């Protein structure tokens, strides 16, 4: 499982759309943290501690907003209830979605406000 660094190496060719780039980036981010601590073993999930690190490093701007931070805290709280110990890809995707959803509302509100102030 090496050599995944090349841009657009997988199913998506180099001319991928912006949205495809975004999805790939999120997938790569999962692989980056899921791969930690077990070099030659079968691919596993992200450990909770690594997920916390990931939130801090990769989402530090987005989580500075208090509302978003609350959402993240809740996510981590929910994680601790999960006895499984590792976060698989589906769980990871849901968690990121949980962060994205309130941001999505904020962006929409901002756009609405911009419309009125124009």
């Amino acid at each position, binding site marked *: 499982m090496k050599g995944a660094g090349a841009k657009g190496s997988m199913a998506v060719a180099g001319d*991928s*759309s912006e949205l495809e780039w975004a999805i790939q980036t999120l997938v790569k981010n999962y692989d980056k943290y899921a791969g930690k601590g077990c070099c030659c073993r079968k691919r596993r999930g992200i450990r909770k501690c690594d997920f916390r690190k990931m939130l801090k490093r990769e989402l*530090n701007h987005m989580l500075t907003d208090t509302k978003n931070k609350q959402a993240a805290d809740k996510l981590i709280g929910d994680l601790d209830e999960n006895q499984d110990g590792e976060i698989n890809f589906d769980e990871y995707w849901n968690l990121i979605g949980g962060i994205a959803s309130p941001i999505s509302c904020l*962006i929409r509100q901002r756009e609405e406000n911009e419309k009125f102030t124009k």
Partner: protein
Amino acid sequence: MGCRCCKKRKDSQELTDVERAIEIVINNFHCYAVKGRKECLTPNELKDLVGQRLPHLAKGVEPLEEKIECLGDNEEAKLQFGEYWDIMGDAAKVCREPKGKK
């Protein structure tokens, strides 16, 4: 579809790749969710989005019609952000397949 979405925010250069990626996914949703209730995509808006923005990953979200049918009849069917995100998750799995399996 004349779409001017994905406009860069002023502070976008400060964001990490992951944050920018999340913003792009969100912006695409808002860019296509223009009819009626703006916090939802209609089935046609979803079809346009997948057709135009996911040329390489569309196979991951097939059969799209089936997914749309699950949402209710065409007149009332609408996708909230969470459902859109789930569909993007299906598309994401296309990126993972080739190297995950031997």
